[in-house]
């Protein structure tokens, strides 16, 4: 294809009522018999994290679980001997969790006509109410790679302290069971291993990089919840998990880790979101005059380069303005009494919650404006340095994933490429072109990270594509795939 004129395609050439010359004979569809190829879908187990669970709109709830990609996949598998997928369904369509009657996770978001809003409801899913499994959808929101091997990760007693995961606690076969043990116990003939490595970088990113890049630290028990997992730890874990899952000869599919920074959670709020008039800009500039003067002195003293001085100089002007942040990676000038301030640039990513924080007042003091006169703390912004850590870790994980997928002959679903396509040109799904805009993109749900039902359906189709390619099945050719038109992009308030 000649891509030189691709831009033209973005503009629909609308011919009113173009007539087709198709005769009635052309309408007959040729039915292609479905084949499973070398795969056996009779016992399907999905192992993963929040995507596998069907997390959407910031929560897990019955409707979103029904639209989880493993559930959509199992519906296609059922056409060729696939068994039922069992899921640890939540108690309601509100989402959110109670632990001993205390709410520990919020209900889901919904679109209130203007933007995402938290559903006004009290969750009814009680974590201590342990469900009897086994559950073949082993998607546990929040699980990192090494958690799969962690015994006790489903112990209710550990939930309150953060030692255990409430979602796994609901479904674990015993308090001491590990995710992998529970998965292996089901003796799958086919598995999906998804989002391995995802939470290993995601929590770092969503927290604005408040955690630590643990690369080099091989002991995951010492990691904080928002740290980046060491690639070697990741590789060892993945190797163990895949070896175990394939020990019985099972086939499976595995996904790469996308650049989470392509998600609307990071791309929705621009780096310069604050419109100012000249007077306010002048006023703010006056407030930073002293800091800017100090930087010049530091430069003069050779403590910082001219470049860093320029980057740190805070200047507002009429129009859209970058916000002021505190950046721990700047040269420490506290000796001069100068804080680590600078304004954001296009390389910085402001996290989604920042949109409702920037511009708010501290203690209702009109002079203390968050993001302007009061610099944003680390949690609101993923700086370019922090983004770099995420990218480097992701790339390293993906090398491992690709290598293991190759050596084990697994179907390889390149989520990284898929998300990249969606976030740049948009990705075609039947008659729709989905992209990663928040609310309107149709792919990513209201939380800016997880997918819509239509997004999960697309993801399921991408799995089928990879399975067809690897195992010689023909889901796509036979039309045994999810249809965009069968999946919503938004869950209504009342469900």
């Amino acid at each position: 294809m000649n891509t030189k004129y691709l831009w033209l395609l973005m503009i629909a050439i609308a011919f009113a009522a173009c007539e087709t010359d198709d005769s009635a004979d052309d309408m007959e569809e040729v039915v292609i018999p479905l084949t499973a190829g070398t795969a056996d879908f009779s016992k399907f187990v999905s192992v993963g994290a929040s995507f596998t669970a069907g997390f959407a709109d910031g929560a897990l709830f019955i409707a979103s679980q029904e639209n989880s990609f493993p559930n959509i996949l199992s519906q296609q598998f059922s056409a060729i001997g696939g068994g039922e997928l069992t899921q640890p369904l939540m108690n309601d369509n509100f989402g959110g969790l109670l632990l001993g009657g205390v709410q520990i996770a919020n209900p889901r978001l919904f679109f209130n006509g203007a933007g995402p809003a938290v559903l006004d409801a009290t969750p009814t899913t009680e974590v201590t109410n342990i469900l009897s499994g086994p559950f073949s959808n082993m998607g546990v929101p929040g699980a990192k790679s090494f958690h799969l091997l962690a015994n006790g990760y489903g112990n209710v007693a550990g939930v309150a302290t953060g030692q255990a995961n409430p979602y796994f606690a609901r479904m674990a076969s015993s308090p001491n069971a590990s995710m992998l043990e529970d998965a292996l116990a089901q003796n799958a003939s086919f598995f999906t291993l998804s989002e391995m490595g995802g939470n290993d970088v995601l929590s770092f990113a969503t927290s604005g990089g408040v955690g630590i890049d643990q690369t080099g630290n091989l002991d995951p028990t010492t990691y904080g919840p928002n740290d980046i997992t060491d690639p070697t730890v990741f590789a060892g874990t993945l190797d163990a998990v895949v070896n175990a899952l394939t020990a019985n000869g099972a086939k499976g599919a595995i996904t790469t880790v996308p650049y989470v920074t392509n998600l609307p959670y990071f791309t929705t709020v621009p780096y310069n979101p604050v419109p100012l008039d000249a007077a306010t800009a002048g006023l703010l500039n006056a407030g930073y005059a002293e800091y800017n003067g100090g930087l010049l002195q530091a430069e003069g003293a050779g403590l910082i380069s001219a470049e860093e001085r320029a980057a740190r100089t805070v200047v507002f002007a009429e129009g859209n303005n970058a916000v002021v942040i505190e950046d721990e990676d700047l040269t420490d000038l506290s000796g001069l009494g100068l804080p680590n301030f600078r304004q954001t640039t296009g390389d910085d990513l402001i996290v989604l919650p920042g949109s409702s924080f920037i511009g708010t007042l501290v203690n209702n003091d009109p002079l203390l404006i968050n993001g302007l006169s009061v610099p944003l703390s680390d949690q609101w912004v993923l700086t370019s340095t922090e983004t770099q850590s995420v990218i480097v870790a992701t790339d390293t994980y993906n090398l491992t994933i690709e290598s293991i997928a190759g050596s084990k002959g697994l179907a390889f679903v390149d989520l990284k490429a898929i998300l990249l396509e969606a976030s740049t040109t948009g990705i075609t799904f039947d008659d729709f072109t989905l992209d990663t805009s928040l609310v309107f993109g149709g792919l990513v749900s209201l939380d800016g990270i997880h997918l819509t039902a239509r997004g999960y359906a697309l993801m399921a189709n991408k799995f089928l594509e990879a399975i067809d390619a690897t195992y010689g099945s023909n889901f796509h050719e036979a039309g045994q795939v999810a249809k965009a038109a069968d999946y919503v992009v938004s869950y209504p308030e009342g469900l």
Partner: protein
Amino acid sequence: MKAIVTLFCLCFCGFAYSQTTINGKIVDEALVPIGGANVIVSGTSVGAAADFDGNFTLTVNLPPPFEIQITSIGFQTATEQVTENNQTFNITLLEGSELDEVVISASRTPERIFESPVTVERMGIREIRNTASADFYDGLENLKGVDINTNSLTFKSINTRGFATFANTRFMQLVDGMDNSAPALNFPLGNLLGMVETDVQSVELLPGAASALYGANAFNGILFMRSKNPFDVGGISAYVKQGITSQEAAGDNSYTDFGIRVAHKFTKHFAAKANFSYLNGTDWAANNTTDKLNRGLDRSAIDYDGINVYGDEVSTDIRGVAEALVDLGVLPAGAEALVPSVNVSRTGYNESDLTDYRAESVKADWGLYFRPWANDFEIAYVGKVGTGSTIYQGANRYAIDNFFLQQHKLEIRNDNFFVRGYITEDNAGDSYDMVFTGININRAWKDDNTWFGEYVGAFVQGSLAGLLPEQAHTLARQTADTGRFEPGSEEFQRAFNNSVNDPDLSTGSKFQDNSKIYHADANYNLSHLIDFAEIQVGGSYRNYELNSFGTIYTDTDGPINYSEVGFYTQLQKKFLADERLKLTASIRYDKSELFDGFFSPRVALGYNVGAEQNHNIRASFQTGFRNPTTQDLYIGLDVGRAVLVGGAEDNPARDIRDYSVSPTGQTILGTSTIQFDGQGAYTNSFLLNSVQNFSATGDASLLEIGNSSFVKPEQVTSFELGYRGKINKLIVDLSGYYNAYQDFLANETVVAPFYGDVQLTQNIPGTDTPLALAALGSGDFQVYQTYTNSDADVNSYGAAIGVSTKIFGNFDLGGNYTYAYLDFDTEANPDFRTNFNTPEHKVKATFGNAELFKNFGFNVAWRWSDNYFWEASFGDGDVPAFHVLDAQLNYRVPGFLKSQFKVGATNLLMDEYFTAFGTGLIGSMYYVSWTINNL
């Protein structure tokens, strides 16, 4: 012209003396008078018809001795020698066959069908009396090789040898030498300006090319109707028919048809006649709601376009609408991702909401005939008018209401020559396009942009509220349709009235036209001067005056005039012993003001075999040509999906329209609106399909230059072989033909960019992006349908066999089979539509007895047509095979006004069928009729 008339008068007045009058009575072997038998002077067309009692009187300007031929359908031809003036004959005709009937059209001179050089079919008074169809015109359907395409109850269109839509411009219909076609349409409106049944002398049908004698448009066939001359047939004759039409969609409706002929020979110098007929009924309602584009969609589909549902043709890709709304800031940025790239159509109205289905035909004609010397020299003035209401299916479906067609002819003739001139004028009256009526009632209520905008807005809201696409579409349509004009409501009626009175198709649907044809032709038969062969010469001249007030043609600045002229000659000679071999050779030269001249030759050989000369073998080669129609040449009509722009060289430049251009176009052109004319279609355009391929792939190398060539005449070369003969009691007529078409008149759909050359040499300054591609990408173009000629090889061949015989004594049994095949490589020419529209196999049979017992007869006709695929501008689709059975019983009461009473029914099987995609289903008709004095 006047000079020529004078010249002819001078030439012929000199022969106008020495009259002979003869009289006699014609009976059959049982001494029953044969009413309507023809008596003609051998070798001429002058003659008389016997009255109901078999008596005839004939006056000719020949001195005895000469020969007369006495013919009647079903009887063998008899010849008698006239040896003296006032001779009286008692003639007994032996029962014969239809091969003995005399036809005139095939060679422009009387000859028996048996030895006609080409295939010819005839229907005379006797057939008309016995036809099981509702009227004589419908009865043509039982002839071999003939298809009748039913537009409506009153408008039927004849198809011989294929390539016919309802606009059968390849077929010609002559009534007493006058071309019946409506100037605006270029084809005859069935029998709406035809003849009143009681005035019909004979109907002849020549399938195949006849350009050598009849010029342009006598291309695939010609229908030749002759009326009764008041000098020959006088008195009052009339008929009245009352019945019902029965159709599932329209119910049972009354059907009335009456006609009267009054003729009188005042003196031997002057005779006159007048005819009038009135038909009133209810048309076949068209309520087909299946998907017009054969996608299998039903009414619940978002892009539904029902065959007989109008307004839903307006369809657009809602993703494009969403993008536009986002650009305008009406929808939030990014919201287009929620909107699928699918076409959605507006909600349409049923055809039955847009017409009352009144079928009406009022016809009158009158003639004054002078024979100054009481011989065969005759001066006649004939006037004809037709008005009424019908339905015509062309590019769209049109309600033709209160149209008015008129013709006036002045003719001077004797046995050896004629000169005639006539004028045809049409007036579209209150006619309107039903499709655009639906579209513009919708637009009057809510313009397309608003409707689609509301649709998309509601779709996005619905999707965000958690609706599935299907539910969101339903919500969107409900939202956009809120407040729609309901049929029957006052606002609906007001919008309807506004639309049908407004000729601007962007807001209305009135069909406006008042065009004229002026025609003159002359023929001179030299046989009385030259002995060695029969030689004829002739010529014709025609001038068109197109006047649609800028609504159909590019005649905004006044009527468009152009003319055609043609000359022909024919030589006929018989050779060998018993004159068994007959050679007919003709050649015609035609020249249109717009095109190079054309020669069309015809050579035909006929040979009689057998001791009794009971077998005739014929072979012919001929060419025909067809000038582009007035619409092919001069149309300039925006029908929404494209602007139709005729292919006459001076036409495209006159189709000037205003367009607004995109922001990109504004940068390039430096203006926000431009005037663009149709020249782009013919000089700087891409083929539409290639643009669609380009749009789908982005590959500019797929673009193909359109640049349609200007239109020129289409030609056909035809070979025909045939056999006619009597084998014991079996009469056989069979023929086969092969037609090869050249420069087939065809349409192309092209896209003309507003800027940039289609060779892609001009780039946007400072870039390497061709300007023309920028125009395509920015929507700065117009889609045109051009009128041009195809290089594709189009051939067809076919055969027909007809047999008839007597069984069980005097029962008539006839049957025929027609085969037609289109030899065309559809795969190699995917864009080319031949509109062949003809079933491959067709079988017809009739069974009857004109005299089952005294004065009582019956006839049953059965037809079967194979299925075929219908292609025409309104739409394409399958026409399933059908059986039709018609029957009639008749009883004659010769003592009571020479009456014939008839009870008949058409489509007795009550299995509704259709002959073309898009029309109403044809139901059944039941009628009783009473005819008086029609011989």
